[in-house]
């Protein structure tokens, strides 16, 4: 183990020896990178006056598919520890993380049967797609639009609430990332809220506050942009020339942003009120970036986190939905596997460097059209597989693919040793939820449908806050949001409810 070092504020932090840098960097470009001349920085919450005690972290992830088709290959037969791993959870054994993760089964989201009926608390209207995100991650009903698709919760999502509780002075209150960069559906209305997972409180002064108290936290879908956002100010080495170069670049960026924001102020004075408000949002974001740059040290420190080699974004895939000849090619896939690797590395390092403590990690869009031929040989997209375009095994493989991407973060965190002992995973609570389960579909009024919020599952990982990892908990009748709330509580959120849903799942705790 390396000797402890003191940063400028006296906080002791050890270089994470349990973390193989080679392993951490594996995802970048998909090529093993030798120990680079990347140097260490003082950064983050603790460097800003937090206690030396390692903070907790939180991550919530989402996969935009249902987990079954009349039945599933996900829920273990065994309850408790040493649970059996079926095809849909195979990544748990492949990655060696079964004992770090608990599976919660028997979950559901209530619904309103009638078309115009108000859903029950924490429930959804009968339209399936787009109306489970708010229920699961904010514990609220979603706003209903005439066509049933909206997906806006009525309150901030769990990542935002946890950040309120534990973010401290970290530079990034919440990191919102999305692995699937484009929708692949090939029409002109492909994105919208289907690409969004995190919603933050809207300022009460905002003109839209009365009608919608939340606003989106737009996810980063480019690993390159996400990387640049995290590691601005990191010097590639401690040699004087490199440090000087970074210092100049930071100065240049701040000068540029300062000038631009000044000109914005001048311009806003000439605009009407509606335009001024639009420009104000842009101005606020520029100012926030300026502040982040202002807080980023320009030279190497010694608190134990390190920059990573800048990644390249894999090319964007094209639309899908057209037949075997398309599925059998690169359409509908943007190398999401590599993108997930890159984001997992960034998340691990953001936690290590204490740049952020709360992450929203959207793996795929709701109603996901990603091509499964690329990753598991099924000639269809995930969405059609859940509607019978393939056998149950194809759905299970889709479920497992999501778990594998989420599991990459688990493995990264497990590999990082905290200065005070244990690993980052021990101080993290993470959840993975899926868009649906299987069972009754009030939209089509039939059973055994993937458009169902019966028989849902959640994966809860990490050991923060006394989480008891590595077990199968049968939580029949519980709401998915209760599993999410359990992870939130473990991370440090003190509330006893999430939106309209109360109570965590006690069996998840020691």
């Amino acid at each position, binding site marked *: 183990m390396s000797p402890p070092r003191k940063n400028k504020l006296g906080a002791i932090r050890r270089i994470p020896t349990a973390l193989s840098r080679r392993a951490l960097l594996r995802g970048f470009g998909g090529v093993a990178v030798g120990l680079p001349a990347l140097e260490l920085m003082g950064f983050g919450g603790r460097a800003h006056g937090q206690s030396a005690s390692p903070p907790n972290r939180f991550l919530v992830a989402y996969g935009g598919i249902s987990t079954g088709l009349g039945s599933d290959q996900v829920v273990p037969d065994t309850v408790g520890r040493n649970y059996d791993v079926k095809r849909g959870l195979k990544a748990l054994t492949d990655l060696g993380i079964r004992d770090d993760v608990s599976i919660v089964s028997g979950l559901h989201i209530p619904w309103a049967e009638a078309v115009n009926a108000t859903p029950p608390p924490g429930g959804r209207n*009968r339209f399936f797609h787009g109306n489970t995100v708010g229920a699961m991650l904010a514990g609220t009903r979603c706003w209903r639009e005439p066509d*049933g698709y909206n997906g806006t919760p009525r309150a901030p999502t769990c990542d935002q609430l946890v950040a309120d509780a534990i973010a401290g002075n970290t530079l990034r209150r919440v990191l919102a990332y999305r692995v699937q960069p*484009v929708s692949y559906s*090939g*029409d*002109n*209305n492909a*994105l919208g809220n289907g690409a969004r997972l995190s919603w933050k409180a809207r300022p009460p002064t905002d003109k839209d506050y009365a009608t919608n108290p939340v606003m*989106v*936290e*737009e996810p*980063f879908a*480019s690993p*390159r*942009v996400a990387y*640049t*956002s995290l590691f601005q100010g990191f010097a590639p080495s401690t040699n004087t020339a490199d440090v000087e170069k970074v210092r*100049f670049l930071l*100065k*240049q*960026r701040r*000068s*540029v*942003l300062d000038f*631009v924001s000044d000109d914005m102020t001048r*311009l806003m004075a*000439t605009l*009407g009120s*509606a*335009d001024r408000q*639009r*420009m104000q*949002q*842009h101005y606020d*974001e520029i100012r926030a*970036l300026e502040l982040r740059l202002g807080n980023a040290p320009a030279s190497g420190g010694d608190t134990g986190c390190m920059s990573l080699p800048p990644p390249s*974004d894999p090319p*964007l895939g*094209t*639309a*899908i*939905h*057209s*037949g075997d*000849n*398309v599925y059998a*090619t*690169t*359409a509908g896939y943007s190398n999401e596997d590599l993108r997930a690797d890159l984001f997992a590395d960034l998340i691990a390092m953001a936690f290590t460097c204490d740049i952020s403590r709360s992450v929203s990690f959207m793996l795929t869009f709701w109603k996901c059209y990603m091509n499964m031929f690329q990753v598991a040989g099924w000639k*269809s997209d995930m*969405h*059609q597989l859940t*509607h019978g*375009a393939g056998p149950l095994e194809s759905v299970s493989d889709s479920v497992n693919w999501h778990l594998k991407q989420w599991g990459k973060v688990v493995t990264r965190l497990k590999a990082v040793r905290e200065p005070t002992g244990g690993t980052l995973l021990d101080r993290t609570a993470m959840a993975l939820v899926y868009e649906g389960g299987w069972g009754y*579909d009030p*939209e*089509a*009024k039939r059973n055994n*449908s993937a*458009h169902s919020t019966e028989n849902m599952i959640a994966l809860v990982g990490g050991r923060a806050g006394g989480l008891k990892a590595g077990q199968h908990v049968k939580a029949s009748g519980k709401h998915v949001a209760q599993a999410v709330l359990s992870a939130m509580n473990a991370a440090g959120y003190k509330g006893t409810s999430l939106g309209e849903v109360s109570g965590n799942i006690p069996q998840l705790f020691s």
Partner: protein
Amino acid sequence: MRATMIGRKTRRRGALHSLGSWPARALPLGALLATGCTGVIGNQGDGQLGGPPSGGAGTPAAGGSPGTAIDVPSPEIPLPGATLAANSALRRLTSYEYDNTIRDLLGDDSRRSRELLPEDNRKLFDNDYTTQATSTALIEGAELLASDVVKRLMTDQARRHALVGCTPAGATDQACFQAFLTRFGRLALRRPLSADEVARWGAAFMPLAQDAKDFYAAVESALLAFLQHPELLYRVETGAAVVGAPGIYKLTDWQLAARLSYFIWGSTPDELLLDQAAAGALRSPEGVRGAATRLLNDKRARELWSRFHAQWFGYDGAPLTPDLAAGMVQETAALIGRVVFDDARPWQDLFRATETFIDGRLAAHYGMPSSDSTPRWVRYDASSQRKGILSHASFLAVGAKFEDTSPTMRGIAVRERLLCTTVPPPPPGVDVDAPPLDDAGACKEERYQMHRHGGCAGCHALIDEIGFGLERFDQQGRYRTREEKLPACAIRGQGELVGVGSFSGPGELGDRLIQSGELNNCAATQLHRFTVGRTELDETDRRAVELLARRMGGGDFRLGDLILDVVSADAFRHVRRD
């Protein structure tokens, strides 16, 4: 390269059709849809004009109708005036516009915006400012994008020298830097910088040159600021209040130049257009028309208007056979380029063309005789049922579902996009994601019988019938006579545009659409949406669309002429702010 013909004089065919001249069969189309469906349905614009097309199908050279007479705008029907100026707001450049702007300002055609910037929500066209949102991801993506572009420029000495325009005498050569700021600033911000502004830019960035002992550090910093500057990222259209017309503002010459170039090119004004703005040449309708004619004769217009059609017809981003996709996109772009620009034919010839631009591979895909490795115009066989844009794989890929065509989705695309009717969502109890029922080998038309009962029947009769008329063409545009998965099922390929007539195949569907008399009104509506950057139209918009449609008449029109009409209207040089 063919000579572009935009701006040539058109022949007057005769008096404009009056409201009373609607063909009896065209009128009931919207009404049928309105009464036959559950929910609200109807034409979005009203006051359509109609009339039988004068052209008819098929003509020699281009397979279009070069001899077709054009409705010349009637002097009695004025262009939309200032009081019909559209409501507008700050419009952020779209990813496409930003990439074009970078290309035209800096000669960098890397086009990375879509990768690095969050995508805005889209309803129809990607320039809908009402769906644009600002976020941390956007701001940081834009910063990285600018940094990438500037980095590439600074390492290319020839390009850098050409851009700066002078050779600095030293690291702090103020004169050279100011000359650069003055010239480039006018291009980037689409207006001249005042002397004070030039001094301010100089004062902000020259110290960085001093610090780095490198003149180009200041240039680099200024470029980064220009590329993130609000007046580059947004189209600022403050204008000046018009006396006696509350809420109406007249655009400055510079703002009008920018509006013109982004409308026709999807890019920033060039030096000549800015010179024309500076000289006051855009203050008259004739001046704007002249400037716009030049823009339309540039290849940037060809690309923009091809894209406009792709978003309008819905095939932008449609799933295409990957190894043929480029050829399929080129096929449709070539037809639009020829009809709208090269030959300045009636726009309706997009639906009538009996030739198509394909190479041997695409010809083989379609089952047409051609083995050329380079694309050329190939004539359709008269019995092929193919004619015009609706025969292209690009359009026929729209609405594909469950690895097959969806007659319903195709019908909805035609109704909503080409006829501008609103199709209501399915009634309760319908799961549109459910795959077709496996009815013991029932043929597709039999399976769709379920749509013809109860509450479904009203709409589906009007929608599915369009799709069934295209059924002999699969989702990649190949001709077929039997169902792929059920070869025992012969495909009739007979459909109907209810209220207009029956048809078989995309060629005849195009004829029926022209015949419906509703295509022009929808064209005016979609063009207006694209012009104002807003899908949802208000009452003022509807009045402006109605006026435009009345000028177009019910017969053939040239898109180039229509665009020139739009930009020379007083409404185009004004903005409304309620």
